[in-house]
């Protein structure tokens, strides 16, 4: 009984580690395949559309609403101290440093990451990947590399857009609903928000999140068990592991960047 239990733990641990190793090798192969895209830019452009542009709507809507809610909540707290004029600072710093990269990463994992896993997994189960191999076309180059690169390019851009619309959403609520003077909103931001410290750090975060999420997504798709059940599990793992990785990495990056 106990030995069975121990065996199970050992087996699970070993298979975890071997999967991590497999993921690492996969990443290496993907990186080595990237130069192939130079000769086939149209592959990258098509993926930029399906991975990036098609994620735009959810990013815009989420950004506006999060900015608006943040302005409302900040006002409630700040007004007690008579500091409601700092509302733009509250909105912009939380968006630039944390919410922008994290929310975009999470939404990207749910919208584009899951789609990538499902697409690649289905290509595997319908033998399209095998078919390419037999036609002497390496699917790592033709299928994986363009999707991987498109994800890495898209996430920071989507994050920038998210940040911009969230700050505008906050601006709308602050000036139209809460009666803050427009000039105050912008001048507070201009005075206190640092380009490097806040914006660039946020974008570095988003680059890291994009890298990790899209790596998980393409690996899960490529490595999935090619059945309907296996595909479902792989898609779920992409979203769960991707989201957890973002939250964990966010803590580490924040600790490193802001010298706490």
């Amino acid at each position, binding site marked *: 009984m106990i030995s069975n239990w121990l065996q199970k733990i050992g087996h699970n641990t070993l298979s975890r580690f071997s999967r991590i190793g497999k993921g690492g090798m996969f990443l290496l192969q993907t990186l080595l395949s990237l130069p192939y895209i130079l000769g086939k830019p149209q592959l990258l452009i098509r993926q930029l559309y399906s991975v990036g542009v098609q994620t735009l709507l959810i990013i815009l809507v989420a950004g506006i609403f999060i900015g608006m809610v943040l302005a409302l909540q900040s006002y409630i707290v700040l007004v007690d101290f008579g500091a409601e004029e700092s509302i733009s600072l509250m909105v912009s710093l939380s968006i630039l440093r944390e919410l922008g990269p994290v929310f975009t990463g999470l939404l990207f994992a749910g919208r584009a990451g899951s789609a990538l896993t499902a697409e690649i997994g289905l290509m595997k189960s319908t033998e*399209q990947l095998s078919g390419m*191999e037999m036609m*002497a076309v390496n699917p790592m180059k033709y299928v994986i590399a363009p999707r991987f690169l498109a994800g890495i390019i898209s996430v920071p851009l989507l994050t920038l857009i998210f940040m911009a619309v969230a700050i505008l959403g906050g601006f709308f609520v602050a000036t139209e609903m809460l009666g803050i003077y427009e000039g105050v909103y912008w001048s507070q931001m201009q005075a206190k928000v640092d380009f490097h410290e806040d914006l660039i750090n946020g974008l570095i975060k988003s680059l890291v999140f994009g890298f990790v999420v899209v790596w998980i997504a393409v690996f899960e798709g490529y490595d999935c068990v090619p059945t309907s059940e296996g595909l479902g599990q792989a898609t779920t793992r992409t979203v769960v592991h991707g989201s957890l990785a973002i939250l964990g990495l966010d803590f580490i990056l924040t600790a490193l960047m802001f010298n706490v």
Partner: protein
Amino acid sequence: MDIERGKVTAIMGPSGTGKTTLLKLIGGQLKPDAGSIHVDGENVHQLSQPALYELRQRTMGMLFQSGALLTDLSVYDNVAFPLREHTSLPASAIHHLVLLKLNVVGLRGARDLMTTELSGGMARRVALARAIALDPEMIMYDEPFTGQDPISMGVLVKLIYDLNKALGMTSVVVSHDVNETASISDYIYVISAGKVVQHGTPEKIENSDSDWVQQFMRGLADGPVPFHFSSDSLMDDLTGLAQQGAEK
């Protein structure tokens, strides 16, 4: 096992005996636990990746059971895919080649369809046109007749036969459709559980004195391969259940 150049070699056997695995071994997609496979004088599993890809490009075409067409491309683009990837031919030459290949399988008129609009038989014919796009020396067919209606099946049988005779392509047909496969093959290997049970010309296999081969070739329900999956006797199972019920 020897597959002769320019001939149609059939590999037959029940489902799950490793026929498709064999094709994947030949194509270098799987590694053998023991033994070696030589294609055109080269040991497939000792080649570096670039050399393996070069060998595949030069000598192998494969028709997958599902067709394995790229679903985001049209029929035309699917057939053009290997040409665009491996040659630097101008678009006009690719256009001519694609139309010729599609003409061979009778689907020149379907070139603008998306692969999702094709019937199963048509998809397999498009896949065949794609497999012969680069004029490989050998073409491997994985269960080409499975799930086809009689007309599509007849078309595929004729295509495989014609391609072999007209272009001299070495053909390896993996199948368990006994009659269709036997009618076009020069040599047959019958395998079961990963082992060659018998091999020879279609006539020799037809007149085999092995009970197992006879059962397989004639499609008999019971014989050396029993009808029942191995289990206790029905009586034991039933009384066993009754006892369990009584204990409860």
